[in-house]
């Protein structure tokens, strides 16, 4: 995959740029929660724009950000000049999200039919194995559901793409955490030194 350091550099660049854009335009002082929101949002959007809409989670992040009206202005500001293009691209893929819903419902239907068919065919395994298998399957399914909720935009994907998205998302999260931690420590140091 991409080298982690280049990832972090890219992320940092975009993040700082977005933050600067945001802070320069707003005159009033924000309270801590607002600041936190801004920081987080800008970080998310920075990374998401870095992916340029290639991964599903990045698109979902941008889509979520632009959905609420109050966030939208912020998001647009953060994203800067390229926001229009990006949001347009994301909205076209959001159209696919609704298609994904249809696909998903079709898949659910198909799956239920298949499972019925398979049950009718009958299994050749003894009861214990069948039980164990079904339990295992149910566990995995439950966990996949949870994972789908965690990864942004993951609800409409099949398992394989979900795993890929998770991979990408995890690398992004790691980069984000590291960069943030570094900056936090640096600012803390600076403040301590200044005092």
């Amino acid at each position, binding site marked *: 995959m991409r080298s*982690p*350091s*280049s990832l*972090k*550099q890219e992320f*940092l*660049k975009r993040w*700082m740029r977005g*933050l600067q854009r*945001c*802070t320069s335009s707003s005159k009033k*002082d*924000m309270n*801590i*929660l607002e*600041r*936190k929101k*801004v*920081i*987080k949002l800008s*970080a998310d959007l920075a990374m998401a724009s870095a992916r340029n809409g290639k991964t599903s989670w990045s698109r979902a992040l941008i889509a979520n950000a632009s959905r609420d009206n109050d966030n939208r202005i912020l998001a647009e500001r953060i994203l800067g000049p390229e926001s229009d293009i990006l949001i347009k691209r994301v909205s076209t893929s959001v159209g696919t999200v609704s298609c994904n819903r249809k696909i998903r419902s079709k898949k659910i239907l198909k799956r239920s039919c*298949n499972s019925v068919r398979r049950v009718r065919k009958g299994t050749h395994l003894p009861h214990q194995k069948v039980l164990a298998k079904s339990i*295992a399957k149910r*566990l*995995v399914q439950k*966990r996949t559901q*949870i*994972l789908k909720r*965690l*990864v942004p935009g993951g609800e409409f994907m*099949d*398992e*394989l*793409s979900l*795993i*890929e998205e*998770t*991979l990408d*998302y*995890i*690398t992004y*999260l*790691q*980069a984000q*955490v*590291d*960069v*943030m*931690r*570094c*900056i*936090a*420590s*640096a*600012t*803390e*140091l*600076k*403040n301590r*030194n200044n005092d």
Partner: protein
Amino acid sequence: MNRALQEMSYCLNGPGNCTDMTVLERQRARVRWQQSYFGGCDFGGVFSEPSQADQVGNFQDLVVGGDGSSVLDDVLTHSVKPDPGLESGWLELGRLELPKMGFGSGGSMNGSPTGLEMNSSISKTSSCPPTEAQSAPEAKGKVSVPAEKMSSAAGRDSSKKRKADKMQNTKVFAEDDAKDKRSKACAEEGESKITTEQARTKNNTSTPTTNNRETSADSPKENSKASEVQKPDYIHVRARRGQATDSHSLAERVRREKISERMKYLQDLVPGCNKITGKAGMLDEIINYVQSLQRQVEFLSMKLAAVNPRLDFNIDDLFAKETIPACSADFPTIGMSSEMTNPAYLQFNPVQQVAACCGFEMGLNSPDMALRRPLSALPEPYLDASCFTQLQPPPTWDADLQNLLNLEFHQEKSISFPYQPFTGSIEASNLKMEI
């Protein structure tokens, strides 16, 4: 089983004589089939068996007293209903020809000396359309031509089938049905391996494509990943010995392999996942890790917001005054620095520092390691380097960075690091806040 067939065909071929027309037809068809078949048509071995079984069934009709071996009997009893689209085409031909040829028909489709080849080539081509022999438009063209020559409605249907788009449901259903039926026969015979071997031996030219896998029900996304063929619509799988050759199970197996491959990547990414083997456990770890990362991000952004009342992150400022040397084994960052011109360099320098610093941090993420890190005295060169963090002309900066890097690289990563005193306190404070 195949050898028995071959022997039989030879025997039956002996006395008889095929009519010219059929021979000519068949030879032409055979040439085309062979061309198409060597033209890269990938044959699922699954289908060669049943087609032979069908032909053997025809033998059996003719052979007096049914003196076939017990194997033949088995084949007959398990013989499947022919695929409506395709097999009937061949079968009809067989049935048409057989009465004319009498015993001499032997391999129903066989021309006399080339009977065996014909047999196998037919079996190959019959397997071709259901596997949706790919791209090869030549294959399509050539196979469809003999089909039309046979001038059976079924033949036409089969050619239509071949030309049909993979996304059309009817085709998929027909394929699935055919595969299901054939796979039943195959599974019961346990012949999958033999057919694959036979296919393999004859399929030398198309071995590069044998690594592809076949699915009929996969998502377009997976198909587009398929790769080596011109039109990556289908991936072709070989059924392994002793495994079901059901199209569903094939697709399932492909899917499962892909998933397990991805899970392996995840294992590398998520720390502490090496010992866990089950999917559920792995997913559990992944979920925990993602949740913890997300929580960390929340916390860190809160911390940043608290630390920075005005949200002014001035990176140059930050790192000019701070003693965060760019020590890490991140050579790429250094590589980048040397490429850049001065102004760009100065701009990116802090970025690299952060990245480098983060690279270091990544190596020592857990607080345990931080605690264990020995606090050695600052050696002289590092102090000097820290002084150099003020804006310096690039060449010396470069040299310093190189020095630091070399030193860092030669040392073990977990041991003494320049900004020990600071990071000790930083980590401690982090610990306090995280706990």
